[in-house]
C-alpha cells in the first residue's frame, strides 16, 4: 500500500498542496476583488464584476487545483482526519495576508492561530498512527 502512495500520490502531500493552493487563491481573489471595486457598482453585489481582473481568474485556477488535490487526499484518508488537517488554512491565510498584503493581526487573532496550531498538533498524533497502518 505504502508503495503506490509514495511520491506525488502521497495523500499528506495532496492535503498540503490543496491547503497552500487555497491560501494562494485567496490572495489572488482578494487582490483582484480590490482592483475591480469601482467597476459598475450596481452589479458588484453578484461578485461577478471581479471576473474582469485576470488575478481573479488565477485565483479560480488555484481553487480548482485545491479541489482536485483534496479529492485525491480524501480518497485514501478518513474525513475525520483529513478535514481537521486542512484547517491549517486558518493559519496560512492570516499569515500570508500579514506577510504579502500587509494586513494587521491583533493579539487575540495570534491567540486563535496558536489554538489552531495546538489542535493540529493533537490531530497529527492519530495521523502518525494511521501512517503506520498504511
Amino acid at each position, binding site marked *: 500500500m505504502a508503495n503506490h502512495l509514495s511520491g506525488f500520490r502521497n495523500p499528506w502531500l495532496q492535503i498540503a498542496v490543496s491547503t497552500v493552493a487555497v491560501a494562494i487563491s485567496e490572495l489572488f481573489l482578494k487582490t483582484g476583488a480590490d482592483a475591480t471595486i469601482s467597476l459598475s457598482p450596481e452589479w458588484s453585489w453578484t461578485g461577478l464584476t471581479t471576473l474582469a481582473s485576470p488575478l481573479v481568474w488565477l485565483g479560480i485556477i488555484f481553487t480548482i487545483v485545491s479541489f482536485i488535490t483534496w479529492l485525491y487526499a480524501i*480518497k485514501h484518508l*478518513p474525513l475525520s482526519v483529513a478535514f481537521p488537517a486542512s484547517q491549517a488554512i486558518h493559519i496560512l491565510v492570516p499569515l500570508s495576508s500579514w506577510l504579502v498584503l500587509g494586513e494587521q493581526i491583533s493579539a487575540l*487573532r495570534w491567540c*486563535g492561530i496558536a489554538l489552531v*496550531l495546538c489542535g493540529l498538533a493533537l490531530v497529527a498524533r492519530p495521523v502518525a498512527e494511521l501512517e503506520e497502518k498504511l
Partner: protein
Amino acid sequence: MSPLVLVLILVSLVAFVAGQLLLKHGMASTVTGGFRQRTFLVFILTGTAAMAVSYFLNLGLLQRLDLSYLYPFQGLSVLFIAGAAALLLHEKLTLPLIAGSVLITAGVVLVSIS
C-alpha cells in the same frame, strides 16, 4: 438575527458537510472500482452540487453579514464533519482527534471574532 438568516446558515452548513461526505464516499469507491463506474459518478456529481449550493448560499449570506459573524459557524464544520464521518462512514474517532478538532474550532472562532 432573523429566522431566515439562521435557516440559511444551517442549510449552508448541512450542504457543506453532506457534500464532503458524498465526495469522500465517491472517491473511496474508486480505490477498488476505478473511475468508470456509477457510484463514483453519482456521488461526485451530487457532492459537487451540494458544495456549490453551500458556496453560493455563503456568498449570499456574506452580502448581509460580516465575515467575522459568519465565519465561526464555518468553524463548527470541523466538529460536524468529524461526527458525521464517524456516524455515517464508520470512521474511528480517537480522543486526541476529538480534542484536536475542538481546539481547532475554538481557534477558528477566535481568529474570526478578533
